[in-house]
């Protein structure tokens, strides 16, 4: 299995949509073949269309507010003592997380295809919140599928979705988290694909959704590359990019522009959710060697039992609480371009405390996983190493959990 240079990773799948010949694909009911093919044709055409790119960039700039900041975390750097620690504050984006890029692109595509309704899944509630924002902006009706357990633990985002006029549909099946929300959303699409567009909230699902999402979030690394060159005059000789990985949309977007660099120069570190330290359950299929299986239309490493039943996950962060992982990351793992590890719930919470103590930055529980590993590793790295962590979400949505786990002093009221 080999990563090709000079070709975007999202376009490196074969004609059946398999990366490396075995990850991804289209394991979908017959009914979805046609709408997926239609979306493929539309996307392949539009991504080469200068007018469409211009339109996308216009909304990215004026509405999402790109570029998001790249900041040096000077206090944290001196506290840790080692590599220079920087953060790309993607949570600056309109709505407070990277999910806005994919949501915006899907709404633009839905408009072009004449669909009036858009549906989406959500875990942490960010994908849903952003889709509801974008749908409102582009005049589309919006339905969001969300696990009942997630609705309870991510109330601020649920309120935001409702405020934007979206129907939030609670999903009570299975573990009542993201995996069930995605299943239910796909089921709704099976029954309504003639009138409705579907947005999959991460780089998962049938191949076309993996590609659209990866293409959308790549905005992050386009900005980062320019910002690094602006800061250092070049892409640093020793650069390490840390990102949390649930489905894998923010990390893929954070890395994409650096794909062709030697990994000795630009290393990618993906941090999965290890779950509670005392629990055997986790959401880290790459770190803990899960087997390849089929989930939500794609072949991927996925937590499952011997029979092929998908296993329940456990993580403090709803956004990482997913048993599978993007086919793109399976591909990056097996080609050894990226390295994957996990942080536990407790480690993520501790990292959140450290970051908020030293810096004016409030990463949500998802990027706190990445901060945890980055802080640990930065200690041992030379001063000329540049560590960048994608702070892809804001902790406002986690205020209930943080208050419960850490006490009121860690929660700001806005």
């Amino acid at each position, binding site marked *: 299995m080999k990563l090709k240079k000079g070709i975007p990773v999202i376009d490196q799948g074969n004609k*059946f949509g398999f990366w490396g010949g075995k990850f991804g*694909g*289209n*394991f*979908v*009911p*017959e*009914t*979805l*073949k*046609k*709408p997926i093919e239609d979306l493929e044709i539309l996307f392949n055409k539009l991504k080469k269309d200068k007018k469409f790119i211009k339109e996308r960039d216009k909304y990215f700039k004026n509405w999402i507010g790109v570029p998001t900041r790249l900041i040096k975390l000077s206090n944290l750097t001196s506290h840790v003592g080692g590599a220079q620690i920087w953060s790309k504050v993607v949570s600056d984006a309109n709505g407070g997380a990277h999910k806005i890029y994919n949501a915006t692109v899907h709404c633009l595509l839905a408009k072009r295809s004449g669909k009036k309704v858009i549906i989406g899944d959500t875990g942490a509630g960010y994908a849903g919140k952003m889709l509801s924002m974008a749908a409102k902006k582009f005049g589309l009706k919006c339905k969001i599928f969300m696990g009942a357990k997630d609705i309870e633990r991510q109330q601020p985002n649920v309120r935001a979705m409702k405020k934007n006029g979206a129907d939030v549909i609670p999903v009570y*099946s*299975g573990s009542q988290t993201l*995996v*069930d929300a995605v*299943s239910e959303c*796909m*089921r709704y699409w*099976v*029954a*309504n*694909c*003639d009138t409705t567009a579907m947005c999959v909230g991460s780089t998962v699902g049938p191949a076309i959704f993996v590609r659209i999402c990866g293409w959308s979030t790549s905005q992050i690394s386009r900005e980062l590359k320019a910002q690094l060159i602006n800061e250092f005059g070049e892409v640093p000789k020793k650069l390490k990019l840390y990102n949390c990985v649930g489905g894998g949309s923010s990390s893929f977007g954070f890395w994409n522009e650096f794909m062709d660099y030697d990994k000795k120069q630009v290393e990618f570190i993906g941090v999965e959710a290890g779950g509670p330290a005392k629990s055997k359950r986790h959401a880290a299929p790459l770190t803990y060697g899960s*087997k390849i*299986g*089929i*989930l*939500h*239309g794609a072949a991927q490493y996925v937590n*499952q039992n*011997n*029979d*092929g*039943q*998908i296993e329940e996950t456990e993580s403090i962060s709803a956004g990482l609480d997913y048993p599978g992982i993007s086919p793109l990351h399976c591909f990056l793992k097996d080609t050894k371009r990226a390295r994957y590890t996990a942080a536990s719930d407790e480690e993520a919470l501790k990292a959140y405390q450290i970051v908020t103590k030293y810096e004016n930055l409030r990463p949500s529980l998802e990027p706190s996983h990445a901060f945890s590993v980055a802080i640990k590793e930065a200690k041992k790295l030379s001063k000329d190493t540049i560590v960048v962590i994608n702070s892809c979400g804001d902790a406002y949505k986690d205020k209930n959990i943080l208050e419960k786990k850490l006490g009121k002093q860690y929660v700001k009221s806005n």
Partner: protein
Amino acid sequence: MSNPIRQAFQNLKRERRTALLTYTVAGDSSNKQSLEILKSISNYADILEVGVPHNTPVADGGQIQTSAYRAIQNGVKMNDVFKIVKNFKKSKYSKPVILMGYYNMIYQYGENNFLKNCKKSGVNGLIVVDLPWPENKIFSKKCKQSSINFIQLISPTTSKKRLKSIIKDSHDMIYYISMLSTTGGKLKVSPRKILINYNKIKKIDPKKNCVIGFGITEKTISKFKNTDGLVVGSQICKEITRSLNNRQNPVINVSKMVRKLRKKIS
């Protein structure tokens, strides 16, 4: 010997009858009970679809999800599914049995190993919901080599070009999904429209046996009398749930229902 599925359709045609296909989930609500249900309904049904329960089904509605959930809770494993079929076939050797499920279950078992066990236990056909054409080409060939019918699915969204290719690559039986819906949805398309699509399929190759599923219930079944076959699934699963909730015997209640369904298309 010809495949029992083909044989069943030939017999039905001679008798000018429409095939009744039932769908129940293996292991719902226990291995023993699901076997008893199969034995009992096989007196009225012509072909038995046996669902392999899976916990992330992307095409099943509430009723079948509930049945599958019950079966998984009861600990049913792939090997139990084979055992149920094997035991059923001991007494009803010629009654065709089709396993229906999602590809991950086959993938984890290993395609070849899966087919070997299908053959050993007496499975005659397979419906794999999330392995569409052309992705299923290699596996469907393997099925043929093992004398197992791979049943292609066709839906209202299937394009003309695909339709022809799928029919060409199909074996003895084709499954037409009546409407855009998960299983268990209310019939939201007029029977007339469904029959127009059905006839399109038959016109391309009249020799293929085409059954219609999704939205087929006691209420709607008689409207499709003159087709090759009809599948009832969710309504049966719902009846099992209802019986269990009312502390009644699902075997008796489901049999009654299937007998009624049989009468409506006889």
